[in-house]
Each structure stands twice: as structure tokens, then as C-alpha cells.
């Protein structure tokens, strides 16, 4: 193994370099941008879920003093060109391609669909203008369920498709599905629903677009997970070359998958700025964020499980229907990931998987922290139900089925090798920490007093970034970074990562500081300028490995280059030189030390001929090395009040393995935040629609999120086993908490309600639903 040069910072909970600005109000979020002559946009939006647009009258809005322009869907259509969603374009989403315009022209397809954009001297005036936009609609029947969408008689949302199928039905088989089911001792059937909920970053979407008419250059200040994907989306829609668009991003107030690329609204704002030749700001309000920014997870599953009499899960046959909402987004891609990940860390002999995507009059399906998470939910849910049927303990059935760690590693039946997966160890450790026998005693005592405690466990693995695919061409993608030694002695890292809470300006600096040999404070991490940083995206829990890895390798390359140059100016051999604490010196002779800043200043002096490489900058790339999985086991203990239906999570334990930790406090923050979202998803959050398509959770009084009183202390223990790569064994933790907390909590609730015989096949369990489940299971109550 090639160790990091000096592990002074890597592995320690170094205080974040982001915090001094964030804690003093000096962060720069998109709504803080103020440009000379800047106008403000607001959108007039549809109050109906599905309707033809008969006419749009903007004359009264245009006449309002302070309103500068009002543009309709037809106006925008005339000044832009059709373009696919930039994330879909990047990932190569195939399948039906609905035709639609940036703002509604012929019809509206969800409550909140934008119909016109009003641009005014202030946001207040722009919203006044929206109230004056008169739209005449002709109601169409709303398509509010996947079942109705897949009915050939449902009215198609998109005329060019002729039906409401976003992803045509497909079926794939891995292993011998029919043979496995034919020889199983038992076959069990389940129907499981996962409800619609959503990202809800505390900062919504927004941008400031500023077009320079003379230069033909568009500058967009964005809230995004990737300045380049946003740039591509804006450029494609405006019909100009990508190099005519510069996207800048500062601090970003969370995203969780929502802010990738450029939304229709953001593209419209850019088009209007070009049209007017003035900067235009749009920042969505919370109502817009909840109603139209995007939602996730509305999926249903018919699951058949083939089981042996003693509890081996032999095979699964799954039918998935996903409600992708109105417009193209992540939803059409999700079933393929669910299929690939469904076996999890368990050894299945066979998997049949079929899926269909349905288009409905609801908000578009977007990526939300672990977009494929439902595979973990259904797997970990049915394992508990099977265990109950067979009289096994939940930990026992999991230990029984988890793939053994072998060399070479076992592979998931869907193909990926389970290299370095430590599910077994995490299960055993969780059982120890929770002290199962002691809990069961407490549970029995509590039940005698009318208190219903429950314990639940669930495991997960997270491709963060995933194992290196087998074969010589196997690659996990490529991450780039430019690194430069500046004349002030600082090491600048230019990364395409676009942190929005992940603390990259701290973590990447920790790694580079150790490897290069400068104090942490001497590393500057530059993000958020599409003209300056290499292509990148913060998402998919990839950055610990990919960006961490390129920071390590890049710092090593830069150091070699600096030492070569230093050897020349110091008249020494590069092999004898070291860099520590920001000084270059001849090993064994501290008196020779000179600051790296002096070396950089010498290099910048321009006094060297072509035979000396004085360009102290490198472009590094990293292919992910051996990659690997993150994963672990979570455990929740809940207290269910069977009179009120209120569930309290009283204890929560996470045993995780994300390889080598870069910054434990940052890792634990990611885990806790994900778990909090998972607790919210089960106990509180639901994006709710009425049958007529009206959106019912458009405020924080209706869309409830966990508060400090709803989330318990989360106990975390790290397993750091099985290094796979020579030197890059950091793995991501962005999504795991949100992936595994829902089944963990639901399993605990079902355990608490065992005396009532309750079986749970759904994920959203607010108090009213808990009471219904108890009543349905025990009609005598």
C-alpha cells in the first residue's frame, strides 16, 4: 500500500473551513446575488392538474407599473429551441420522448405548471403581475394514479405519445427464476407501496441570469450540484454554444438530488434575460418548491419470494410500477437501478424483475437521496415478514442469507461483485450494541404496562462509488482536478465537485495538505465556476472516492513536479528533498528549508529556459481505483402509543462501513442527516394530492418535516475493514442513511405492534395510519 504521505489531517474531525462564513452570515447563496439593473421574475402557474390552455391574456399584467415584461409559453417557444433535460441527456435516458414547451402553450399537466413569466422591478411587483395574468382553461380528466395512467382509456398528457407510458414494460431474469420458484419450499406474495415524498432543501431552486448583449455571453449564478450540467442545459435551450455560457455557484442551501442541471423555470429565466438584455433573478418560494420543484419515490411493488423451509431467501420475482409524474426526469431511470441493487448483500439464486413507468398529473420525479432506495425497503421489509412466518429472529434470517465474503468475492445475481462488503460484521455488532436479549425483556415488561416498544434492523449497501467492474475495461468513470502551487505558497485545487453541505472545501483540503506537505489552511479548494473548474457533479455519493482520490493522486503529482523544480533551484537531487509544513528541505538537513512560496515565486519569475519545467500545475485524473461499497446495518427502537398512534424513535444505532474516514464529523453528519430524512419519510412526510389533482401539501404546515424533538441521538460506530485499493479507500456516505432508515423504522414499528398481529406493507405511517392498522388487524379494538 502507498500510504498518504502524512496523516495529520486525514482521518481527523478537522473543523470546517466553510463555517466561519456560514456562521457569520457571510455565505453567498444565489438569492444574495444582486447585480446592477437586475429584474425579478415570478411565474403565473396553473391552478389545474390537467387542462387545455385556450387563451392567455397578459395585457393587464403588462400594464402594471413596475412590470417590465410578461412572456407566455408561445413567446418563450419563439426565442428558445427544444432541448432534453440536461441530466437525462448526460445519462442517456432512452424510451418515449414527450414533446412539450418550456412554459405551457397548448395544455397544463400539473398544478403549478408555469404558464407565463412576469418580470418586474421587484419580486413583489412580479407577483402582482402574476395575479393579473388571465388564463382560460378547458378542464381535462386528471390522471392521478399509475393504475389509471396505464389504462389505455386514460387521456394522454402528451399528444405525441398517445398514451401515458413513461417507461414501457420490460422484464429481465437473472439465474433460473422458474426453476428456483418450482423447487422452493414456500412462496410468499407481498404488495408493497412506497409513498411520494420529496427533497425539500431549505433553500429552494433559483438563479440569476445575466446576458451580455455585446459579447453574446450568458452568465448564470445558479444553485446547482454541477455548474457544467447546468451550463449544458442552458446552452442547449438557448441554442448557443456551451462556451458562451458561464455558470457560477457559491454556497448552496442543500439539494439532496433536486438541483441537477437546469429546470424549465431556470431555462426560461435565462431566455428572458437574453431577450431583455438585463439580469433577471428568480428564486422560488416554498409553495413553488413543494408543488413543482420535483418529488420522488411513488412506487408500488408486487413481490414473490421463494423461500426454503429453514429461511433461505432463494429468489425474488418483482413487478415494479413507478409514477414518474408529469415531465421527463429521473423516474424513467430508477427501475433499472432498483433491479441491479435489489439483491443487496444477500445471496439470491434468481431474480425476475419487471417494471413500467407511468405518466401522471403530478410533480416530476426527481432524484432524491438514494433514488433506488425502495429496493432496500422492500427487501428489508419482506425479510422481517418471512422471519415472522418461519419463527426466526430478524437478525438471524439476515445472517443466514448474507453473502459470505470470499476471494474472489461473490457477485450479486445481477452482476456486481460484493467486494469488501461487511454486512455480516455490521449485523453482529448492531445486535451486540442493541443488546437484543435485554431489549426483549424490557419489551415484555413494557407490554404488561400497556406500552408498545419495538426493535427493527435493516441492512443496506450503497454503490459509493461501487466496486470496479470486472474486466480490463472496467471503470467507475473519471474524476478530474487541476492543482497548482500558488506564489503565496498555497495549493489550489480546482474541482468540478459542487458541494452543497458535504464540506468538500474541508475534506479535499485535508487529503491534499497531508499528501503535499502543507498546513491545512494552506490549501484552497476552488469550486463553482464552469470557466475555471473541470467537469464534475456532486451526487451519487461518489465524491469521497472520486474527488478524494484525485485530490490524493493530484497532490502527489504536483509534489513530484514541485520537487523536480526545487531540486533545480536548490541544487539538490529531487530524491533527497521533502516537503513538510510548507517547507522544502534536504532530508536530514533542516537548515536548508525554504518555504514552498519561495519555490513558487522563483518558478513564476520566468527566468528559466525550456529545459526547466517551471509550470507548477498539474491536471490529474482518477478512475476510482478499486472503488467499493459503503454499507452497514441500522437499528431503531420505537415506542408506539397505541391510543394516539404517535411513534417515538427512542434509540437509533448505525453501524457503518465507508472504508477509511476522511473527516469523521463530516461522515457522521451525512449519516445523521440521512437518517433524519428517513425518519421523516416514515412518520411525517408525504406529498399529497387530492383526486382532482389539487396539491395538498404546499406549505410546511402540510408537508411536515422532522424537528429537533423528532430525531433522537443517533449512535454511530464505524467498521473500517477490507481495504480494496492501494491508497484510495475512502467511500461515500451521502445516501445510506436515507436508504436504510425507512425499513429500519418500519420494521421496529411492526415489531412493536406484534401483539396486534399487524403486518405493514407500506412506508408512510403517520399516527392516523398506525391507528387504522391496529384497528384493521384487531377489529375488536
Amino acid at each position, binding site marked *: 500500500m502507498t500510504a498518504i504521505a502524512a496523516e495529520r489531517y486525514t482521518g481527523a474531525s478537522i473543523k470546517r473551513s466553510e463555517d466561519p462564513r456560514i456562521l457569520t452570515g457571510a455565505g453567498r447563496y444565489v438569492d444574495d446575488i444582486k447585480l446592477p439593473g437586475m429584474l425579478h421574475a415570478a411565474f403565473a402557474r396553473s391552478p389545474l392538474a390537467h387542462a387545455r390552455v385556450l387563451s392567455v391574456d397578459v395585457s393587464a399584467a403588462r400594464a402594471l407599473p413596475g412590470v417590465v415584461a410578461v412572456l407566455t409559453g408561445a413567446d418563450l417557444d419563439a426565442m428558445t429551441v427544444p432541448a432534453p433535460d440536461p441530466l437525462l441527456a448526460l445519462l442517456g435516458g432512452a424510451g418515449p420522448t414527450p414533446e412539450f414547451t418550456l412554459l405551457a402553450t397548448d395544455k397544463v399537466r400539473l398544478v403549478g405548471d408555469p404558464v407565463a413569466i412576469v418580470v418586474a422591478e421587484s419580486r413583489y411587483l412580479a407577483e402582482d403581475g402574476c395575479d393579473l395574468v388571465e388564463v382560460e382553461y378547458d378542464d381535462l380528466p386528471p390522471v392521478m394514479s399509475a393504475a389509471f395512467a396505464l389504462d389505455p382509456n386514460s387521456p394522454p398528457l402528451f399528444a405525441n405519445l398517445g398514451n401515458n407510458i413513461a417507461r414501457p414494460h420490460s422484464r429481465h431474469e437473472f439465474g433460473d427464476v422458474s426453476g428456483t420458484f418450482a423447487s422452493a419450499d414456500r412462496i410468499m406474495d407481498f404488495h408493497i407501496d412506497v409513498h411520494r415524498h420529496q427533497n425539500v432543501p431549505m433553500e429552494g431552486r433559483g438563479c440569476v441570469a445575466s446576458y451580455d448583449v455585446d459579447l453574446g455571453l450568458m452568465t448564470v449564478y445558479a444553485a446547482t450540484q454541477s455548474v457544467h450540467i447546468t451550463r449544458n442545459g442552458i446552452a442547449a435551450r438557448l441554442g448557443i454554444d456551451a462556451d458562451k455560457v458561464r455558470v457560477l455557484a457559491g454556497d448552496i442551501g442543500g439539494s439532496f438530488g433536486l438541483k441537477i442541471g437546469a429546470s424549465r423555470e431556470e431555462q426560461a429565466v435565462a431566455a428572458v434575460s437574453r431577450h431583455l438584455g438585463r439580469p433577471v433573478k428568480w428564486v422560488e418560494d416554498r409553495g413553488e418548491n413543494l408543488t413543482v420543484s420535483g418529488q420522488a419515490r411513488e412506487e408500488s411493488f408486487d413481490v414473490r419470494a421463494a423461500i426454503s423451509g429453514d429461511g433461505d431467501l432463494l429468489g425474488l420475482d418483482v413487478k415494479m410500477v413507478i409514477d414518474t409524474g408529469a415531465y421527463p426526469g429521473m423516474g424513467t431511470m430508477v427501475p433499472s437501478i432498483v433491479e441491479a441493487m435489489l439483491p443487496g448483500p444477500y445471496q439470491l439464486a434468481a431474480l425476475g424483475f419487471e417494471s413500467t413507468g407511468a405518466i401522471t398529473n403530478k410533480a416530476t420525479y426527481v432524484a432524491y437521496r438514494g433514488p433506488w432506495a425502495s429496493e432496500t425497503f422492500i427487501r428489508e421489509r419482506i425479510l422481517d415478514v418471512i422471519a415472522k412466518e418461519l419463527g426466526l429472529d430478524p437478525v438471524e434470517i439476515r445472517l443466514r442469507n448474507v453473502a459470505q465474503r470470499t476471494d474472489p468475492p461473490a457477485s450479486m445475481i445481477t452482476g456486481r461483485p460484493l467486494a469488501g462488503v461487511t454486512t455480516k460484521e455490521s449485523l453482529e455488532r448492531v445486535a451486540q450494541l442493541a443488546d437484543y436479549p435485554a431489549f426483549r425483556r424490557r419489551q415484555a415488561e413494557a407490554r404488561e404496562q400497556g406500552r408498545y416498544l419495538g426493535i427493527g434492523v435493516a441492512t443496506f449497501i450503497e454503490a459509493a462509488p461501487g466496486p470496479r467492474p470486472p474486466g480490463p475495461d472496467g471503470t467507475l468513470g473519471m474524476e478530474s482536478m487541476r492543482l497548482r502551487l500558488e506564489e503565496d505558497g498555497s495549493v489550489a485545487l480546482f474541482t468540478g465537485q459542487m458541494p452543497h453541505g458535504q464540506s468538500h472545501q474541508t475534506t479535499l483540503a485535508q487529503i491534499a495538505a497531508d499528501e503535499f506537505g502543507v498546513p491545512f489552511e494552506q490549501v484552497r479548494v476552488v469550486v463553482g465556476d464552469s470557466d475555471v473548474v473541470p467537469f464534475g457533479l456532486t451526487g451519487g455519493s461518489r465524491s469521497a472516492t472520486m474527488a478524494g482520490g484525485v485530490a490524493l493522486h493530484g497532490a502527489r503529482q504536483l509534489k513530484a513536479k514541485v520537487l523536480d523544480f526545487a531540486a533545480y533551484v536548490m541544487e539538490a537531487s529531487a530524491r533527497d528533498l521533502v516537503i513538510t509544513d510548507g517547507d522544502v528541505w534536504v532530508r536530514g538537513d533542516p537548515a536548508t528549508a525554504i518555504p514552498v512560496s519561495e519555490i513558487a515565486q522563483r518558478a513564476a519569475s520566468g527566468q528559466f529556459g525550456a529545459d526547466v519545467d517551471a509550470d507548477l500545475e498539474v491536471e490529474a485524473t482518477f478512475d476510482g481505483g478499486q472503488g467499493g461499497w459503503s454499507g452497514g446495518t441500522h437499528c431503531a427502537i420505537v415506542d408506539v402509543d397505541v391510543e394516539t398512534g404517535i411513534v417515538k424513535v427512542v434509540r437509533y444505532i448505525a453501524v457503518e462501513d465507508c472504508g477509511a474516514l476522511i473527516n469523521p464529523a463530516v461522515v457522521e453528519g451525512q449519516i445523521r442527516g440521512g437518517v433524519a430524512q428517513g425518519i421523516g419519510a416514515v412518520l411525517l412526510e408525504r406529498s399529497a394530492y387530492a383526486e382532482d389533482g389539487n396539491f395538498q401539501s404546499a406549505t*410546511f404546515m402540510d408537508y411536515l418535516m422532522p424537528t429537533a424533538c423528532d430525531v433522537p441521538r443517533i449512535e454511530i460506530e464505524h467498521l473500517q475493514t477490507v481495504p480494496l485499493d492501494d491508497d484510495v479507500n475512502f467511500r461515500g456516505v451521502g445516501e445510506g442513511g436515507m436508504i436504510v432508515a425507512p425499513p429500519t423504522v418500519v420494521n421496529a414499528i411492526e415489531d412493536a405492534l406484534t401483539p396486534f398481529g399487524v403486518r405493514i406493507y407500506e412506508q408512510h405511517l403517520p399516527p392516523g395510519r398506525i391507528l387504522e392498522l391496529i384497528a384493521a388487524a384487531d377489529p375488536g379494538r
Partner: protein
Amino acid sequence: MDITLKVNGTACTGSPEARKTLADFLRDDLNLTGTHVGCEHGVCGACTVILDGRAVRSCLMLAVQAAGSEVTTIEGLAVDGELGPLQQAMWDAHSFQCGFCTPGFVMQATAFLGDHPDADEQQIREALSGNICRCTGYQSIIEGVLLAAERNRARSGRP
């Protein structure tokens, strides 16, 4: 309407429209963009400022209602570039991630600790339960406030 108020110790004047919220006035008219607007309906607490000693939601107040008042925003807590004790404790405790909810939590906790220097964890959780953070799961925030309280007690020589 012309108003005069004191913001972070400095007298300020302005002429906001009657309907302008205090949050928008601070951000747009005074360029104090540290106060964040998260929901505009008083639930999330991101816009919390301290007005005449009490934590208030600046999205639910009109600027004109603040006439004659003393307002402290997140920009007013660090003195001469030195973080205030709560800010320092929250830095030490890794309290935050994306930072959007941060000003609201810091202002709410500042007001609460001022009145309840000996608060325990449960009291702090309840006091901050009107502020929403989507990133952290709250534990690190609570730890930051507890750490600040502990240091305050040590500084004042109390147990």
C-alpha cells in the same frame, strides 16, 4: 413609509413599502443577506432575528413594524471579526452543513441561551424545535448549543 431603527448597533433609516417584510428589508434595503428566507410562512425559522431582545421571524413581520426597534442579525454577533461564543462552539461542534438554516438557529439559540443559560438538552431541543434543518439531524446543532452553554457557565464561574 420612512422608518428609523437600530440594526446591529447602528442607526438605520429606510423607506420600505408598507407591505415589505422585515426579512426583505434587511436583505434588500440594508444588504444584510445573512438573514435567510426559507418558507415565508413562519414555520422554518431560517429568517429568525432578535428584535428588542426577543427572537422573531422576520418573514412574518413588516419592516414598518420594526420602526424604533433594535434588531440583531447574524451579522451582528461576531465582534471585530471574532466569532461570538455560540458561533465558536457551533464551529467546534461541526453544527452545520449547507448553512442555509444556520442564521435562524444561531439567532434562536442566542436568544434562548440568554434567558436560559442552564438549559439541558431536552429544553434546548424544544426551544429549537421551531427551526428546521434538513441536513444534520439536529444532534450536532444541539451539541454546539450545549457546548456554548457549558463554556458560558465556566466563564462565569458557575457549575
